[in-house]
């Protein structure tokens, strides 16, 4: 984009120049407000337990205690909870992709009676207050005997209107002629979907995969109620239990902060590597809306 509200010509005028400078000031202030707390927490995570409670607080740690990270690694059983969360994520994505790519393909390129109505029926949940039926959702999991199983998180992933919307819109943009010849050659619809449509849809699948990762990694309440046993705990549950939940036995503040940063690292890395996809994914629905 060449210009916004302010044009290049405008910027030559002193009064506008001032407000343009002010824009930078605001942007910097906002960036500091999101990034500085993270720096502060990082420095806190390296302090001694009692140094954290010095009044007035110190800025730089007097000694850099990297061993806090080792303690956090062990106390929060990081290897196990990371592994659990990754296994859940894998199932989550596979279920979601199978369920929603077939549905989106049908809605996009196959004959469906009352297509628009069916699509709206699926999308309706986008506007429903999902949390308000948390309890019956939990009871359905209970009745299905899925409590304390990873399936309790993976299977509901098969119904997500936001992902369906993204996939269907993307599939709509693939011209039907591309697979018409494959169909004439006798390829089944399943083969067309797997061999032609999905390979063409890598960007949108990447977006879904990244969002699913961030979701699984940050979700808490649902994981907490469906996974009671400690051996099945995810990152969120372990972090909650050892930092906040278990009032009697919370760990020292510096170890808590170290664990907090360890748990933030994987989604942060994903974000920094794939930021373009994320921003595009977010923006895409915005334009649709």
């Amino acid at each position: 984009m060449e210009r916004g509200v302010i044009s290049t010509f405008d910027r030559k005028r002193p009064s506008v120049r001032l407000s343009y400078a002010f824009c930078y000031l605001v942007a910097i202030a906002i960036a500091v407000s999101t990034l500085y707390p993270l720096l502060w927490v990082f420095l806190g995570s390296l302090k001694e337990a009692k140094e954290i409670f010095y009044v007035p607080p110190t800025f730089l740690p007097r000694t850099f205690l990297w061993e806090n990270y080792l303690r956090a690694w062990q106390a929060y059983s990081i290897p196990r909870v990371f592994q659990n969360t990754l296994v859940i994520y894998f199932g989550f994505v596979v279920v979601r992709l199978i369920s929603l790519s077939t549905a989106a393909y049908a809605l996009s390129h196959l004959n469906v009676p009352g297509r628009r109505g069916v699509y709206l029926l699926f999308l309706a949940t986008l506007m429903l207050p999902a949390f308000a039926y948390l309890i019956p959702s939990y009871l359905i999991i209970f009745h299905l005997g899925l409590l304390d199983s990873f399936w309790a998180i993976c299977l509901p992933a098969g119904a997500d209107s936001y992902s369906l919307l993204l996939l269907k819109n993307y599939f709509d943009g693939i011209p039907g002629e591309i697979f018409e010849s494959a169909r004439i050659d006798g390829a089944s619809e399943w083969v067309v979907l797997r061999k032609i449509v999905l390979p063409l849809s890598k960007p949108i699948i990447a977006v879904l995969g990244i969002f699913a990762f961030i979701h699984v990694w940050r979700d808490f309440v649902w994981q907490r109620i469906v996974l009671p046993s400690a051996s099945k705990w995810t990152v969120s549950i372990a972090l909650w239990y050892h930092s906040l939940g278990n009032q009697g036995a919370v760990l020292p503040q510096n170890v808590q902060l170290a664990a907090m940063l360890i748990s933030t690292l994987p989604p942060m890395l994903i974000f920094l590597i794939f930021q373009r996809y994320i921003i595009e994914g977010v923006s895409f629905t915005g334009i649709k809306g």
Partner: protein
Amino acid sequence: MISVKDQQLGPMSLQPVQPFGSILRKKLSHYGMGLLFLLPAFAFYAIFQWAPIIYNFFLAFQNFIPGLPAEWVGLANFRRVLGDSLLPVAVKNTLTFTGLALLIGFIVPLVTGITITELRKGRSFFRLAIYMPNIIPAIALYVMWLYLFNPAVGLLNQILNFFGLPGSEWLLSPKTALVSLVMMSTWANFGTTAVLYMASLSAISEELYEAAEIDGAGVWKRIRHITLPALRPTILILLLMQLIFTMQVMQEPMVMTGGGPNNATMTVMYMIYNYAFVYAEFGKAGALGILLFVFLLLLSLVYVKGSHLVEKEVR
């Protein structure tokens, strides 16, 4: 989108005299594959999205403890829920939270979005910086903010002191606890909203601004008469989503304050959670869940009708 097969249906169905069985078979072979491909998603939606909504209506009229047979109790759950002395407090807190979160959560992302879009250099860095909080896992966020909120050694009071202002008790005082949660929640979520505004902003045609400029409209006039009207659909839909989202606030008070101090952060959704998972009164949880669900549904309908959003939403 209409596929090639759809168009063939017209002339085919005009053919005279066909035995019923063969029409059925034709229909099936015409639609069969599409229906088959919809089946998995249909099953997942039925079990995990639609069934809970329907189940909630049964649950509200039952006494139910997992493992024991359900017992029908008529309207008793509703009577007990509406008679709960905590409910008015929770409703008031929820509405206050929503009001504040919408006000701050509207202004901050809008200003951020417009400001950052104006920048000619470093736009992608700032976009990255404002989206960063959205990446942090929720619980990690709470651990971090409990430390920032700490009245004695937290960052927030340090900043206040730096400017010569008295520190606050933040989460520990009934007066400031709810506002503190709104602050944290805004910090955590404004990035997504701002990025969405930025996407709509970049879709505004430059020619509009140029024309306005030639007509002599100043920067503020351009924002008021071009930028804001162009953002209207996005603003309307985001406000609705934020409204639905914030009215169901629960996780923050549950984890950070336990609803306290003195119920200052008890919310409706948190009451529902407590009914079910602390007191094992699933029927009451169902009843209050229905009330919240129906209230939000009506609210959204009124909103959509009042703002003429509906044609915009789905093609």
